[in-house]
Structures are given as C-alpha cells and as structure tokens.
C-alpha cells in the first residue's frame, strides 16, 4: 500500500505526520518511508536511519558534435523547454532546463547529438529499527527535482506492507511525481486562510491524478473552522486534528516526532492508519 503525505502550503506538518505514522505502526507492519522532499529532506532527523547505499541520479542531456552540426535549428525548435539555442555559428545547450526527453537527438538528421549523463542528485537508502528508509537530495544549483523523485519511487511499495511518501510542498511537478500512483494521499493543512487556499489547490491536483484524498488539520484552531467547512461541503474526510500545542512543537524542535514523544499520540496515529487503510479498501 502506497500512502503519500502532501500539502499545498509548506510547513504544515507533512514530515510530522509521515514520520509519526511510520513510527506508530512499525511494530505491526513492515514499513518503508521515502522522503521525496529532495530540495530539503528532513525526515531522517526524526528516523535516524543508518544509510548503507547511495546512488547518483543522472539525466540524459544533449551533447553536440559541432563538426557535424549544420545549425539547421531543428533540435532547438523541437525542444519545448528551450534548452538548446542555435545561433549562426554556434550552439548553446542549457542542461539545467533539459528534461531528458531525447527529442533533439531524434530530430537531428546529421546525427550530431548524443545524449550524455548529467548529474542532478543523489539517493540514499538505509534502515532504522523497523523502518526501511530512503531519501533524495537534489544537487545544489539544480532545478529539476522529478528525476530524483522518480528514481526514489522506482521500487516503492514492492517489499513492505506499507510505504509512506513524504512529498514536497506545493502542487507543481515535484509534488505530482511524489503523489502519483499512491493509493491515498493524506493532505496536511492548517486552519488559516493560506492553509485553506493551498488545500483547495492540492485537492484539485490529486483529483486530476485520480488519487483519493483525506485531510489532516495541524495546528488546529477552534476559532477558524473554514477548513472544516470546506471539507464538509466537498465531502473530503478529515481524519485527524492536531492542536496548536507548545509541547508538540517542543518535542519536534528536539528532533522527536509526535508518535515517539507521546504514547497517547502514538495511539492516535495507529488509529489514523487504521482509518486510512479503510479508505483505501
């Protein structure tokens, strides 16, 4: 079973929920946790895994043999990402814009283009007691997170009973890549106008992907019920509310996730998982 944990807005508590879920059920199920927030992976802080394997992630980018190129610009016109510029006498490539689709090499009649690997990031694999853990790290200066996430998800959900995916925030390509193909997406939000606005966007995104969703409200404030009202109107289940509580923040700031810091919350997260499982069925 593949459960992704996403949000529209950043900083709502995706990692808190993902790590707590993993820790709460690890004695009952075999669990895998994948941190797909490759721009700033932080789930490892709460899981403390021992990394045993690291693999470089590369994407194919064009290399142009200038002796064969006649500057016909077919490659440049075919590239929707504008990663190749053809000038009168020179060719410029922009590997950071390249999505590795290979269309440039395909359309080149002179066979002047070969695809060469371009490093974008690293994935690390390891174990913590009861949890198989993976994370991706996008190299500094790189813009394309999706190849790293794709590689992280290659064998996701194959060995373990449950795989949790800690998604990047937002609703752009990297979130889509992380959430895609999951059995259910838990959307973590907060009871603020920003939380609600971005929750709506995230729900629209997962609807497009055909992934069912449920909501968790973090830092819930009883005086702002707009998220609850929205969920009721749109028949989106709210599976858990985590209050705005100093002691939770305090634990988290010490690198202790909620399910490990509080026996009561550990129970709550076990319960959350059972409810999640029912929704998947």
């Amino acid at each position: 079973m593949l459960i992704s944990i996403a949000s529209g807005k950043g900083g709502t508590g995706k990692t808190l929920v993902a790590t707590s879920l993993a820790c709460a059920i690890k004695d009952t199920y075999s669990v895998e946790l994948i941190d797909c927030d490759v721009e700033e992976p932080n789930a490892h802080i709460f899981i403390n895994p021992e990394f045993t394997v690291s693999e470089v992630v590369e994407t194919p980018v064009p290399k142009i043999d200038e002796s064969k190129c006649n500057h016909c610009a077919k490659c440049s016109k075919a590239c929707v990402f504008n990663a190749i510029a053809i000038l009168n006498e020179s060719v410029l490539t922009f590997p950071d814009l390249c999505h590795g689709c290979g269309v440039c090499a395909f359309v080149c009649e002179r066979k002047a283009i070969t695809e060469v690997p371009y490093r974008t990031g690293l994935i690390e694999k390891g174990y913590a007691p009861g949890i198989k853990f993976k994370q991706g790290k996008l190299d500094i200066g790189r813009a394309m997170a999706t190849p790293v996430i794709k590689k992280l998800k290659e064998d996701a959900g194959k060995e373990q009973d449950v795989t949790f995916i800690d998604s990047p925030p937002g609703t752009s390509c990297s979130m889509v890549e992380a959430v895609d193909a999951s059995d259910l997406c838990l959307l973590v939000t907060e009871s603020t106008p920003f939380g609600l606005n971005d929750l709506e966007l995230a729900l629209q995104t997962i609807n497009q992907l055909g992934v069912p969703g449920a909501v968790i409200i973090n830092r819930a404030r009883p005086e702002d019920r707009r998220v609850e009202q929205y969920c009721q109107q749109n028949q989106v289940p709210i599976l858990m509310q985590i209050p705005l509580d100093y002691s939770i923040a305090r634990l988290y700031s010490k690198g202790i996730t909620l399910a490990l810091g509080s026996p009561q919350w550990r129970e709550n997260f076990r319960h959350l998982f059972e409810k999640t499982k029912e929704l998947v069925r």
Partner: protein
Amino acid sequence: MKIAVSSTGASLNSQIEPRFGRCEQFIIVDPETMRFEVMENPGSIASGGAGITTAQEIARKGAEAVITGHCGPNAHRVLTTAGIDVITGVSGTVQEVVTGYIRGQYTPSVNPNAPEHFGAGAGFKRGKGKGSNL
C-alpha cells in the same frame, strides 16, 4: 544597424518593458532612419527558457544591440555569444533609449543583471533580485 528594444507597446513612443524574456513585443529599430518593425516575442508564452528563445529570435533578426531592463544569465549567454551588445537597467521610451544608445550614453553589460525566472511572475521560485549596470 538594428537595435532591439523590449517594449510595452508597438510604437517608438512606447515605454520600455523592463522584462526581457517575458516581454510581449520588441521594437527593432534602424537608428539611422528610425524605421522600425514590431517583433512578437515567442518567449512571452514559453513554459520555460523564455529568455533563451527570445535571445535566439533577436539574433535571427540580425540585431546588434538589445536594450532592456533586466536580463538573466541564460539570455545573456545567448546574446553575448551571438555578439550582441546587451544594455540593461534602462527606462524611458523606445525613441529616447535608442537615441541614448547612439549618443553612447550606455555601456553594454558584461554580466546578467537578473536571476533566472526574474520576469516569470508569481510562482514558487520567483526571482527577487534587482540590479543595474549603469
């Protein structure tokens, strides 16, 4: 000679558009006769790499100088490789800046003066930099 100016409108009296890659139209002026043509910019609707495609189009038009507000690193690389002078940080009408250029009031910039995605509008990675080489 041809000079390409990023413009908010289709005449010599139009104000300069500060964005390069996302500018909708360029006025390409012959400063000797002040005759001009309007170039619709394919980069304004590009999903990415707007500055690159804009710079390529300007090179194809045979311009020898570009006058604009902000120019990012990718566009700057294409323009300078094509041997085009890049004048940034300029404001005023198209007529004014072309006259200024001919009088030698501006120095071509050696470096880009905006980060990538500067003119792309609201987005997760919206650029925040500002700068001028003047």
